């Protein structure tokens, strides 16, 4: 179990992390998700021992490792740009961690080579051991970096934007493969990403970060369906957001009631967030919001309809099942919101 307690870190005047608490369970696959500058990479580096917090504690299985450097933490770290040793063959790269051990703990050379070969087989690169990193494709380099990190039998695997430098197709294949590898090995793994799709697809739990703090921790389902803040709602998955006024249990947009609220809410200004698929078009009900269609395109099995609402320039995105013909551009439709969440005008949960 990895436990972070009240971690803070500043770079000059910039607060990269602000009192972060986080517990990572053994064997889980955790995603640190957030926009750039949210502190996710700094948090990962602090867990690795590549950076040190100004304040707070890092514990591995109850032991305080805050002051230990990366060399003493037994973590595997996969760098965003792989950081392979250019002057070494793939095999030497993978065997590096074993070959720099103190003489007493160092396996014999033949053993290091056979272990490196096994790992290359594991990442499906057997036979490429004699190549140099420059002779590999991006996806292959990524897998070498992974094999190299695994060679030292780490208790924790950390990956910094592991798919960031790959093109879309390779990224997808590698994602699926990594998920399988994790299930096979059961090694506690944490990866940083700014791609919400990647986090939702891969992770057991997702940590959403923003401005140096954790906004929400939860399963992909929880984070998507019950975002704890306006930020999470908008950052994870597509979300429309309209400024509304609350009055007697209804949300009003341009003085038109557009959504009936459940439970107690006060009166005043707020933001109403709803997903493109939590909407029905064409209904002429009293709550329907007039939508002027400005664009339509296909997104897999549905139409993504873009339009402006109620004469404002605010754009709303709506998904319509693509069984029927799409609505025509310029047509006016009614929009009823089936499911929505309310956040304070400043983004905090309400």
């Amino acid at each position, binding site marked *: 179990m990895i436990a972070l307690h009240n971690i803070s870190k500043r770079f000059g005047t910039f607060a990269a992390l602000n009192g972060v608490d986080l517990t990572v369970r053994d064997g889980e696959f955790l995603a640190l998700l957030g926009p750039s500058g949210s502190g996710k990479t700094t948090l990962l580096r602090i867990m690795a*021992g*590549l*950076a*040190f917090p100004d304040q707070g504690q890092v514990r591995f299985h109850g032991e305080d490792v805050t002051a230990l450097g*990366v060399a003493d933490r037994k973590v595997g770290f996969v760098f965003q740009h792989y950081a392979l040793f250019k002057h070494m063959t793939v095999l030497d790269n993978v065997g590096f961690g074993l070959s720099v051990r103190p003489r007493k703990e160092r396996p014999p050379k033949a053993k290091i080579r056979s272990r490196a070969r096994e790992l290359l087989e594991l990442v499906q690169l057997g036979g490429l051991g004699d190549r140099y990193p420059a002779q590999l494709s991006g996806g292959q380099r990524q897998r070498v970096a992974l094999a190299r990190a695994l060679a030292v039998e780490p208790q924790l695997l950390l990956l910094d934007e592991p798919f960031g430098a790959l093109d879309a197709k390779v990224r997808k294949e590698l994602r699926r493969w990594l998920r399988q590898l994790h299930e096979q090995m059961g090694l506690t793994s944490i990866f940083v990403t700014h791609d919400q799709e990647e986090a939702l697809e891969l992770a057991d739990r997702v940590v959403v970060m923003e401005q140096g703090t954790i906004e929400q921790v939860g399963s992909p389902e929880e984070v998507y369906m019950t975002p704890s803040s306006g930020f999470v709602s908008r950052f994870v998955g597509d979300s429309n957001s309209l400024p509304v006024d609350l009055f007697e249990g209804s949300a009003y947009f341009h003085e038109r009631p557009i959504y009936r609220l459940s439970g107690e809410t006060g009166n005043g200004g707020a933001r109403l967030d709803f997903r493109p698929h939590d909407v029905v078009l064409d209904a002429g009900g009293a709550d329907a919001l007039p939508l002027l269609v400005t664009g339509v395109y296909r997104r897999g099995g549905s139409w993504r309809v873009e339009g402006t609402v109620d004469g404002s320039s605010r754009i709303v995105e709506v998904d319509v099942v693509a069984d029927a013909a799409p609505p025509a551009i310029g047509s006016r439709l009614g929009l009823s919101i089936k499911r929505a969440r309310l956040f304070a005008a400043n983004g905090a949960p309400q």
Partner: protein
Amino acid sequence: MSVSVPFRGDRMVRIALTLAATAFVALFLLLPLIAVFVEALSKGVAVFVAALTEPDALAAIKLTLLVAGISVPLNVIFGICAAWAITKFDFPGKSLLITFIDLPFSVSPVVVGLVYVLLFGAQGWFGPWLIEHGIRIIFAVPGIVMATVFVTFPFIARELIPLMAEQGRDDEEAALSLGAGGLQTFLRVTLPNIRWGLLYGVLLCNARAMGEFGAVSVVSGHLRGLTNTMPLHVEILYNEYNFTAAFAVASLLALLALLTLVLKSTLEWKFDYSHGSVRH
């Protein structure tokens, strides 16, 4: 404890290495420079000024300026032509050509002097013909210029080739497609792109041209007031044990070196221009 990368973090290591490097540079580079000025002024300003204003010194200064004034522009023309041919066109044997252009860097200056003596000296291939027609190259200004051109040959080309290769051909092709002529394209598109690199090359070329000793020494004949450049004048004064005068003239050359360094550093800082070559 805030940074983990080795050597960057450990304060003691950092201080020790910085002091060692500074001490080394100070001892081997800075101290000789200081010694030049101290020795030059050791007998007072009057002696210093006198050493610089006597006729032979003035003649040496004039000759040095003349030689640099001829050889630097020649190298500018050559450097631009070579860089243009090499970077704007593809042809077989390009790397061989670059190797040949680099060649003068690895030839001893004395050998440079010698080859011109073998060609144009009294015993040389063209010696008899030159004597017959009353043309003096060796022990005269033309020989000094030729030797200087040889030793400074690669400076400007070496500065321009990487720069122009990096800039590619798109700009020129765009200008040509818009109807510009060849010369217009060069003057209005290429030249503005390479001017700082060119200036950089000119600076280093000029410093070497004014300071060249070995090659010039062999072809000059050391005729006081006639074929003595400033470095040769320094040598003569020094060998006559006229140390103060030798250092006075040397200090003028050292000032030139300092000026070169200041301009060069200014170019690097202001325009973030870093030089592409270290073979000077």
